[in-house]
């Protein structure tokens, strides 16, 4: 027996030089709690504790604690930071109220997605951004190149990032940090826990209610311990993080998004804000707005796969004549759906819910149907 996909203990760069896998602030904490560690985005990270299925279902019914300290936390400051950042993104930051988080996309000149991210305007001239771990150094390089010299980029590598996700996350987190229950989805703010400064946002990557909490690395172990003492909370690995986000219809950078893909192809048109569309003043605006008007050649869709066998990233979408017309970019067994699901890019004329699609994986044909996403309804807290 052999795994077709194997975790590695170190990554190689393009020249074949082995790059040392780094550790995160909670490395020993995960190992002490039975986390099975794998290399991910250049770091040792827990893929699972008791099992992906159990962790996934626990998060949907109670609350899961995720260590996402590999992600890049950027504090970007300086006079004119808002206008400077808007030149790289299609977001409305100028009129964004303080402490409101927004999903956005770093775009190249062709309109391709360099990264997806969450940004929060913390003050007049300060924006906090969370980017993907695997792309954070490229993102910083891109920003250094394109932002004016009087804007400062601080990659907060002395901070950990924890997510608590699930319907009972509010009970557990508010017991430790009174007041967070009043936040609504995508609202953020500064809080304190035992004298440590926290930046906390009611958001996440599972489709559930919950929080993402930035804190100094030296406080991470004690805070993670305090969270785990709450009866609602169990630690959750990367495996369940992936199956949860897939069910929630949320794309994963490097898989469902890449520099060849535009926001319109990725069905992320909501990230193109009205003022920015009207001004057509973001990178790749000409192409992106034309695609928005006339439709892209291909589009990201959700697929319900027939049978029990997962169809994973790399499988082909084929037409009636067997020609390859698209590709699966994420796929797996969906624990809360009880069936295999996938995300794929298909020709736009097939991108309608209910359309039958044929997939080919390792020479075998699988029938699938285009499905509306999310596969599992989002349960964000938008206010009482």
């Amino acid at each position: 027996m052999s795994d077709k996909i194997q975790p590695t203990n170190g990554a190689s760069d393009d020249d074949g030089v082995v790059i040392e896998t780094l550790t995160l602030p909670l490395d020993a904490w995960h190992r002490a709690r039975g986390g099975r560690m794998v290399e991910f985005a250049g770091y040792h990270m827990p893929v699972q504790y008791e099992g992906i299925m159990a962790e996934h279902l626990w998060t949907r019914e109670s609350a899961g604690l995720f260590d996402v300290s590999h992600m890049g936390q950027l504090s970007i400051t300086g006079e004119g930071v808002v206008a400077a950042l808007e030149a790289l993104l299609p977001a409305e930051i100028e009129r964004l109220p303080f402490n409101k988080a927004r999903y956005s996309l770093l775009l190249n000149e062709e309109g391709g997605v360099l990264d997806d991210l969450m940004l929060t305007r913390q003050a007049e001239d300060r924006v906090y951004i969370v980017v993907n771990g695997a792309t954070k150094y490229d993102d910083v390089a891109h920003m250094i190149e394109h932002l004016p010299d009087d804007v400062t980029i601080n990659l907060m590598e002395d901070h950990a990032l924890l997510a608590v996700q699930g319907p009972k996350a509010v009970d557990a987190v508010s017991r430790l940090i009174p007041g967070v229950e009043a936040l609504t989805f995508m609202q953020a703010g500064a809080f304190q826990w035992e004298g440590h400064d926290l930046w906390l946002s009611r958001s996440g990557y599972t489709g559930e209610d919950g929080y993402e909490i930035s804190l100094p690395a030296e406080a991470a172990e004690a805070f993670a311990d305090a969270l785990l003492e709450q009866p609602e909370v169990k630690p959750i690995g990367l495996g369940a993080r992936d199956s949860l986000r897939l069910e929630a219809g949320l794309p994963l950078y490097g898989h469902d998004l890449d520099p060849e893909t535009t926001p319109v192809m990725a069905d992320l048109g909501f990230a193109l804000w009205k003022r920015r569309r009207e001004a057509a003043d973001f990178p790749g605006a000409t192409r992106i707005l034309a695609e928005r008007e006339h439709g892209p050649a291909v589009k990201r869709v959700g697929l319900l796969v027939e049978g029990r066998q997962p169809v994973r990233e790399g499988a082909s979408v084929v037409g009636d004549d067997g020609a390859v017309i698209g590709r699966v970019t994420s796929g797996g067994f969906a624990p809360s759906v009880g069936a295999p699901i996938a995300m794929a890019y298909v020709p736009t004329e097939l991108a309608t819910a209910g359309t039958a699609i044929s997939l080919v994986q390792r020479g075998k044909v699988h029938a699938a149907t285009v499905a509306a996403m999310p596969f599992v309804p989002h349960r964000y807290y938008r206010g009482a």
Partner: protein
Amino acid sequence: MSRYFTQDHEWIDVDGETGTVGISDYAQSQLGDIVFVEVPEEGKSLSKGDDAAVVESVKAASDVYAPVSGTVIEGNVALADDSSLVNSDPEGEGWFFKITLADASELDQLMDEQAYAAFVEKL
């Protein structure tokens, strides 16, 4: 009846000229939650080392190799309805297929239970 193991974590119980094949408890624990198993059809001829079956966990797909050469007598149909049998009883009810042995001397290259335990210990 004797049980043999491969370095790829298959086991085979041999009873006369017939073998029953599955994956080891160590293998199922490494794979995690198993959500799909594809077993070979009756009559399929396999050479030692051929891809014989597919096992998919939540996180990955893996091949199961034929530990010996022979002809498949039966695939375990129970796994189609409940692939989690491979997690709950990997070396019993979670067997994959039965095979007639074409060459019993191939068993000499496999490990016995004790040797396999020592092999897994070092992984």
